[in-house]
C-alpha cells in the first residue's frame, strides 16, 4: 500500500492550508437552504425590476458593492471560497469541452456581466513581444453595454467557438469576501485564463481579471454580477516548440495518477549523456514499471534498450546521473531509489544502484565497494543525485538528497522541518594499485553535511570563487543549505550569511546567469498556493508583520537570487522582474531557448492533475 491512509478529520492548522492550499474548515457553516433572500438583491440596481430584455443595462448595473457586514472567520471565508472555486472549475471544465448548453447553470437568472469580447483595443494598439508574439490589451473601461445571461453566454461562445481547439480554461478565485447573513453572497476576485488554437494553427491566450458577485440561493454558488477589470490577449502564428515524442520513438503513455498502475509518490527523474560514445545524446528515464534507456539513432529517433544494455534494474528510480565514476572514459550510471530501514531492521524499498559502462554502452551493475546485490549498503530516501569532486582528489563524489518517508512520517514543522531523513555524500574511493574500482562510502558525517531536512534537490557550483565546488541544497518545509566547501573535505552552511536560506518549500534548484553579468545566479523552484495567498490576504490584521511576511514568502513561489561580485552572497531579484510565477514548481533549466544571448527559465509545474474539475 503506497498511499497514506485517509486523514482523520482532526485538527488542521492554517499553516497546512497556507502551504498546501487545503480548505481550512468543514461545511458546518455552509449556508442553509430555504432561508430568506438577502444580499443577492441588496444595494444593487436589480432590487426593483428584474433584469431582462425590457430594461436597458448600463455600467451602473455592474457596480458590485463590498459586503457591509463581512464574515471575519478565516475558516468560514476559506470554505466558501473553496465552494466558489470548485463551481468555477466545473464551469471552466464545461467551457473547455464547449458544452455551452451547460453554462446557464452557473449564472443567476438576473445575471449582468461585461462581455468577454467586443472591447476596443487600448490606446496604442497591439504591441509586439519578442519572438513574434502579438499582444493586445483591451480597454475594459470602454463604452460597451453590459449583457444579461443569454448575451453573456453568447459572448463566451463567440470567443471560444471560433477556436479549432480549446487547450485550457481556468477561472480561479484569487480573493473573496462574504456578507454575513443566512444567505451567502460574496464579492470575489477572479483570474481568467483561456488557451487555445485558432483555425490555421495559431495559438491564442486570453487572460483577464474580474470582480464578481456570487450568490448561493439553492446550495450552489452562481455568478450574479461580473465586471471585467483587465482583459488581454496574446497570439503567435505557431507554437515555439512542437512535441514529437511519439514520432521520435520516445512516447510512453501511462495511466492517470491515482489509478492502481500509477500511485507512487516516488517521483521519477531523467538523465542525458552519450552512453555509446557516438556523439549524440542518449536518455535514461527511470519510471514506474520499468526503466527506459533511449539510444539516439542517426535518423532522429531513439530506440529503447534498457534490457539489452543492462540497466533494466529495479524500476521506480528517482534521480539518475551519468558520470564517469571509474574514470575509464565512458559514462557510468547511478540511479537513486527510495529505500528505508524497517523498524525491525529489515530493508524496505530499493537502494541506490550503480551501473558501470564497458565503453560501448553495455552496463554491468557494480557490486563492489559499498554496493551489494541490492545496491548501496545504506538506505536513502534518495531524490536528486549530484556529482562533483568535493575533496579535489580527481574522483567524482555524489551528494544524495534525502526526503522523508511520506508513507509514514509527517513533517514536524511547516516552516523548519528537521525530521526528514539524513542526506548522503557518497565519496568515491578511486582505484587500488591493481586498477580495481573501489566504489563509494558515505562520508556525509565526516564532511559535515548530514542534514535531516526534507531535501529534494541540489546544485553544485563554486559560489565563493575559491576554486572548490560548493553545494546548494533546496529543502521542503524549511530553510535551504548552502554548503560552502572549506577545501579540507568539509563543508559549512552559509545559507543565512549568503542570503539564500529562502525559507519555503524548495523543490528544485539550478545555477545559471540570469542577469547577464558573468556570474551564475541561483534559481529556486518553490511551491505556491492560490488558497494560501487568498488566506494571507485576509490575515494581515491578525498576526504580527514579521510572521505575516514569512508566511507570505512561504506561499509566494519561486526565487531568483543574483550573485554578488565578490562571491560572498546573493540578492533576491525583485518580484516585479517576473520569472517566478509558477505554482507548484519542480525542476528548472536555465538555458537560452531563443539564442538571443541571455538565459531563459523553463520550469516544470503542477502536483497532480485529476480527471475531475475540482482542485484542492
Amino acid at each position, binding site marked *: 500500500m503506497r*498511499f497514506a491512509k*485517509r*486523514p482523520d478529520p482532526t485538527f*488542521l*492548522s*492554517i499553516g*497546512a492550508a497556507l502551504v498546501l492550499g487545503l*480548505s481550512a474548515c468543514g461545511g458546518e457553516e455552509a449556508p442553509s437552504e430555504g432561508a430568506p433572500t438577502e444580499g443577492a438583491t441588496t444595494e444593487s440596481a436589480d432590487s426593483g425590476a428584474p433584469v431582462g430584455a425590457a430594461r436597458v443595462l448600463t455600467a451602473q448595473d455592474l457596480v458590485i458593492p463590498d459586503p457591509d457586514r463581512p464574515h471575519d472567520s478565516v475558516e468560514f471565508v476559506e470554505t466558501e471560497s473553496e465552494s466558489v472555486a470548485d463551481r468555477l472549475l466545473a464551469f471552466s471544465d464545461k467551457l473547455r469541452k*464547449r458544452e455551452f448548453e451547460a453554462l446557464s447553470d452557473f449564472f443567476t437568472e438576473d445575471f449582468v456581466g461585461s462581455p468577454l469580447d467586443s472591447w476596443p483595443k487600448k490606446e496604442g494598439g497591439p504591441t509586439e*513581444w519578442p519572438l513574434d508574439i502579438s499582444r493586445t490589451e483591451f480597454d475594459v473601461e470602454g463604452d460597451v453595454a453590459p449583457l444579461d445571461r443569454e448575451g453573456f453566454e453568447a459572448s463566451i461562445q463567440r470567443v471560444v467557438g471560433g477556436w479549432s*481547439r480549446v487547450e485550457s480554461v*481556468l477561472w480561479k478565485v484569487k480573493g473573496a469576501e462574504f456578507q454575513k447573513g443566512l444567505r451567502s453572497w460574496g464579492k470575489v476576485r477572479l483570474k481568467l485564463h483561456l488557451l487555445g488554437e485558432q483555425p490555421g*494553427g495559431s495559438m491564442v*491566450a486570453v487572460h483577464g481579471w474580474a470582480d464578481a458577485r456570487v450568490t448561493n440561493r439553492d446550495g450552489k454558488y452562481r455568478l450574479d454580477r461580473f465586471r471585467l477589470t483587465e482583459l488581454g490577449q*496574446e497570439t503567435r502564428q*505557431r507554437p515555439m*516548440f512542437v*512535441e*514529437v*515524442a511519439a*514520432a521520435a520513438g520516445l512516447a*510512453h503513455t501511462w495511466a492517470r495518477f491515482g489509478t492502481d498502475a500509477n500511485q507512487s509518490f516516488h*517521483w521519477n*527523474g*531523467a*538523465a542525458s549523456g552519450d552512453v555509446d560514445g557516438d556523439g549524440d545524446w542518449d536518455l535514461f528515464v527511470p*519510471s514506474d514499471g520499468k526503466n527506459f534507456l533511449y539510444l539516439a539513432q542517426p535518423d532522429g529517433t531513439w530506440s529503447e534498450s534498457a534490457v539489452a544494455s543492462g540497466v533494466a534494474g529495479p524500476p521506480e528510480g528517482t534521480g539518475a546521473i551519468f558520470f564517469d565514476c571509474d574514470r575509464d572514459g565512458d559514462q557510468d550510471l547511478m540511479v537513486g531509489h527510495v529505500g528505508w530501514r524497517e523498524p525491525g531492521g529489515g530493508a524496505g524499498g530499493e537502494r541506490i544502484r550503480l551501473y558501470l559502462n564497458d565503453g560501448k554502452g553495455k552496463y554491468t551493475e557494480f557490486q563492489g565497494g559499498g554496493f551489494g546485490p541490492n545496491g548501496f549498503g545504506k538506505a536513502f530516501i534518495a531524490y536528486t543525485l549530484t556529482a*562533483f*569532486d568535493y575533496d579535489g582528489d580527481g*574522483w567524482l563524489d555524489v*551528494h544524495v538528497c534525502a526526503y522523508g518517508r511520506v508513507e509514514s512520517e509527517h513533517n514536524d514543522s511547516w516552516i523548519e522541518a528537521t525530521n526528514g531523513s539524513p542526506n548522503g555524500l557518497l565519496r568515491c574511493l578511486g582505484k587500488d594499485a591493481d586498477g580495481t574500482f573501489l566504489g563509494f562510502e558515505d562520508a556525509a558525517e565526516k564532511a559535515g553535511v548530514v542534514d535531516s531536512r526534507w531535501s529534494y*534537490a541540489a*546544485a*553544485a557550483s563554486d559560489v565563493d570563487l575559491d*576554486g572548490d565546488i560548493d553545494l546548494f541544497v533546496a529543502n521542503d518545509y524549511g530553510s535551504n543549505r548552502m554548503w560552502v566547501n572549506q577545501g579540507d573535505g568539509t563543508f559549512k552552511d552559509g545559507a543565512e550569511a549568503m542570503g539564500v536560506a529562502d525559507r519555503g518549500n524548495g523543490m528544485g534548484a539550478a545555477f545559471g*546567469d*540570469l542577469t547577464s553579468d*558573468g556570474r551564475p545566479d541561483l534559481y529556486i523552484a518553490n511551491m505556491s498556493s492560490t488558497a494560501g495567498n487568498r488566506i494571507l490576504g485576509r490575515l494581515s490584521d491578525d*498576526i504580527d508583520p514579521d510572521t505575516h511576511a514569512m508566511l507570505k514568502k512561504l506561499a509566494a513561489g519561486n526565487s*531568483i537570487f543574483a550573485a554578488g561580485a565578490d562571491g560572498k552572497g546573493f540578492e533576491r*531579484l525583485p518580484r*516585479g522582474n*517576473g520569472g517566478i510565477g509558477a*505554482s507548484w514548481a519542480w525542476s528548472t*533549466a536555465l538555458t537560452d*531557448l*531563443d*539564442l*538571443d544571448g*541571455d538565459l*531563459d*527559465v523553463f*520550469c*516544470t*509545474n*503542477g*502536483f*497532480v*492533475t485529476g480527471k475531475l474539475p475540482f*482542485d484542492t
Partner: protein
Amino acid sequence: MVASSCGETSSTKKFQTEAVGNAGFLARHNGEIFREGRSFSGNERDKLFLNQGDGSFLDVSDLSGADSANDGRAVIAFDADGDFDVDLFVHETQRERHALYRNDIQVPVEENGAIKVQLRAVTGNEEAIGATVVASVGDTKVAQVLSRGAGFVSCQAPELIFGLGVEEMADVTVHWPGGGSETFTELNSGTAYLLVEGVGRAQVLDVVERPLPDPMRRGVNVRVGEKVTSIPVQGEGGAVLALDVAELSAGKDVYLNFWASYCGPCVAELPILDAWNTAGEVSVVAVSVDAPSARERAAALLKERAPGLALRFSVDPPPSGAPAAPAAIVDLARLPLPTTLILGPDGTVKRILQRPVDEEKDRPGSK
C-alpha cells in the same frame, strides 16, 4: 472533502505558525483524493520565462507549446538533434509521460546563432563538473555551470549551449574546478568545441546532425499511409455502429470529417461536403463531436446545412474514463476542429486536413 475540519473558530487570533496538522500532510500524500480523480495544484502548466536581457522576464508559457499539464517533474535542456538550439525532454507524472519538445522558434541562424562547448579538465576530474563557463558575447557576459544532477532529479547532458544573438563569435572563459581560469578566444557561431584545460585553443567537434521527425498530427492517432477499415460512431437514437470503410467507399474516397455545432468553420464547410457527397464524387462521413446536451442543435444544423449527410456522433465516453471512440482514429480531447481524414477505398489514409476543406484544392480527385 479533503482534510476539512474546523479547529477553533478563533484560530485566526491565536495563529500557530509552528503547528502541524497531520491532515494537511496526509492530504498531500493521500492516494484517496487522487483515486477519486481530484486535482491537487493541478492544471498548472509547465512555465517558460523569457529573459529580456536585464534579468526581467516575460511569461510566454501560453504560446510555448511546451506547457503540458501532465504534472512535469524532470527536465533535460539539450540539443537533441544537433541543430544548435535547445530542445527539451520532460518527464511527466502521468498519461503521455515522455515529452520531447523540438525547438521550432526558427529564428534565422544568421541572426541568432550559437556555439556549443564541452569540457575536458586535466588537473582535476576530467569531466570538469561544476566548472563555470562565461561566454563574452558583444558587450555582455553570460555564465553557465556544467552540472550533472541539479534542478529536480534532472541530469543535463555535458554540453553548454550559448546563444550569440546577432554576434558571430564569442570568447569563452572557463573557471576550472580547482581554481584555474582560461580564455578561449574567437569561437565561431554554428560550431561545437571541446575546451581542454591548459591547451588554450578550442578544438572543433564534429556535430551529429539528426533532424527530429515531424510530430503526429495533433489529435490524430493514425498516420498517412496507415489504414482505417472501420469507423465506430453513434447513429441517431444512440445506437453504436461500426461503419465499414470498404462498404461506404464503393470504390470512391471516403472523407471522414469531424465537426461540432459550436465550430463556425465546421458549420460553414458542411454544404461543400454535402455537395461532393450528393454528386457521388466521394463518400462523406461527418461525425459530430458535440456533447450529448448539444446534439439536438447539431442535428438541426446538419439538417439545415447538409441534408444529404447522415447524422453521426462520436461514441459516448465509457464510464471507465477510457477515451471515447473512435479513439483508434482520433483523440477527441486533443483534436482540432474541423479535421478531415481522406481515406482511399481500402481505408488507407491519404491526407489529413486540419483546417476547413478548400473547394478547389481538396475537391475529390485533387492531389
